[in-house]
């Protein structure tokens, strides 16, 4: 079973530049979470802080009782072995073939025989659809392939916490759909706690159990997916709709004057109605059901009173429909379209 990641009051600055402050959230054990946010809001910095590569000035990240921010270097190194991190650009070793890249963690941390390593690595390579490319150097393949190789490397030790930094960028829509399915299947298979940073609205709508969003140096919200998907917060609606009108501007945030001018113009456009929530993906046929589903249900139903009405309605709706057809997966969603 995955491990819970508890973030408490995290604040990060580079010199005078504050990236985000007072971020608190809990990634529930074994569940899939997605973090949204415009470019440059510090999502990558957040992932790197979780794993202890960057050290925020204040706050704690607790994993199995180890503080990844202020804990002892030795404990942090040990705890990192629980992680698989897929970097935004793959971060493959340029001098090694894809095969050796993916085999690296196995050769470092296990005493497996070479034949065993070969079997595991080839299985992962097949999983991310890179069969035939295993002998190539990272410089000889496309960006999307590098990312998938990075994912395979992150998965090779069966991590209990998986962090993916924009797994979709550089992938075409079809591959992105496959990737969404891959992530859900992965969760069903190893029950790892997963955090995915993405801009992709399809992934955001269909993959996670929980969602959060960074904006203006803060965590705008984090909670069950229904909360964000039904939110009326202008940043969230703008981001989810991919509109220009709203607080998110081209460079950073828009200034007040532009916003006011926009508000006048926006009155003409129809007000957004209640948005339909797409059903969450189910694991592919043949895989076990996701263990996190039951745990999440307990958790979410337990916190129902604290949620906004729209989110509550959406959750009750989802679970009512699920109750009618308890564990039967939706084949249409399962095909990864």
């Amino acid at each position, binding site marked *: 079973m995955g491990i819970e990641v508890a973030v408490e009051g995290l604040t990060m600055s580079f010199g005078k530049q504050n990236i985000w402050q007072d971020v608190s959230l809990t990634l529930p054990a074994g569940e899939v979470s997605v973090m949204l946010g415009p470019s440059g809001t510090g999502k990558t910095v957040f992932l*790197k802080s979780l*794993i202890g*590569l960057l050290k925020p000035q204040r706050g704690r990240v607790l994993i199995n009782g180890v503080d990844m921010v202020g804990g002892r270097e030795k404990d942090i*190194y*040990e705890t*990192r*072995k629980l*992680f698989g*991190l897929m*970097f935004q*650009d793959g*971060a*493959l*070793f*340029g001098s090694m073939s894809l095969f050796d890249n993916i085999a*690296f*963690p196995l050769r*470092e*941390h296990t005493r497996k025989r070479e034949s065993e390593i070969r079997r595991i690595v080839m299985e992962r390579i097949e999983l991310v659809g890179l069969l035939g490319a295993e002998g190539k150097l990272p410089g000889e393949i496309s960006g999307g392939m590098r990312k998938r190789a990075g994912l395979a490397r992150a998965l090779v030790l069966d991590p209990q916490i998986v962090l993916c930094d924009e797994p979709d960028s550089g992938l075409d829509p079809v591959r992105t759909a496959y990737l969404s399915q891959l992530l859900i299947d992965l969760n069903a298979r190893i029950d790892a706690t997963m955090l995915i940073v993405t801009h992709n609205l399809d992934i955001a709508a269909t993959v996670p159990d929980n969602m959060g969003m960074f904006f203006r140096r803060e965590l705008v919200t984090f909670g069950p997916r229904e909360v964000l998907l039904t939110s009326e917060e202008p940043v969230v609606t703008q981001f989810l709709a991919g509109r220009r009108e709203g607080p998110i501007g081209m460079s950073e945030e828009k200034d007040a004057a532009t916003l006011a001018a926009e508000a006048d113009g926006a009155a003409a456009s129809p007000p957004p109605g209640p948005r339909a929530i797409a059903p969450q993906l189910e694991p592919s046929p043949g895989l076990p059901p996701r263990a996190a589903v039951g745990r999440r249900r307990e958790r979410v139903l337990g916190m129902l009173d604290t949620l906004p009405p729209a989110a509550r309605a959406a959750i009750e709706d989802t679970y009512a429909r699920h109750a009618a057809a308890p564990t039967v997966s939706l084949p249409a969603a399962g095909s990864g379209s």
Partner: protein
Amino acid sequence: MIGGALRQTGRLFALAAEVSRAVFRRPFQLREFVEQFWFVASVTILPAALVSIPFGAVIALQVGSLTQQLGAQSFTGGASVLAVIQQASPLIVALLISGAAGSAICADLGSRKIREELDAMEVMGVSPVQRLVVPRVLATMAVAVLLNGMVSVVGTLGGYFFNIVLQGGTPGAYLASFSALAQLPDLYISELKALIFGFIAGIVAAYRGLNPRGGPKGVGDAVNQAVVITFMLLFFVNMVLTGIYLQIVPPKGG
């Protein structure tokens, strides 16, 4: 400004300490060490040999001319050999180790850093210092010692050749003056210098390579700085070591 310089110096020493500790951590990265040793040796040996022949010659000629004026021709051999072994050779080594080996190491680590390879390593629970920096520093030290030996021999032979052929010295007098002026500690200090130079060059190159500022241009700047900083450090350390040596080891001729 001064605070920044102090902080950098502090981090440099911290890295030096970390490397020294990591040297003893298993498993030793033998393959990486051998590869780096070959690499550093291959980029430094030929230029070192080519530089040391004229260097030995210049020193032999200069010392020869001086001793002639002082009426001490018989000491030409020993004096020029001392100059070669104690000063010229370690400095040639410093030059090549920082210029050729240090710049390559810095550029290599720097480009790995900006490609996030080093972060990836740390995330996988593998220390880049133990895995990459230690073999490079050790390889640089080993090559420095080897190179110093080679430069001493080649420089001495060059000096011998020029003294005998151009200045009409006699082989017998040249060799005899050896035993009059030179002693084994001269050779030890020379190799010790080379060892320390190799360590410093390796550490500075690694330090700048691990901390490039922003993008590929930052790596270029880092390489440049690594070479300049190493240079200044090595010349300074050479002065200190020479001073200490001359104080504590009595000269043979005296």
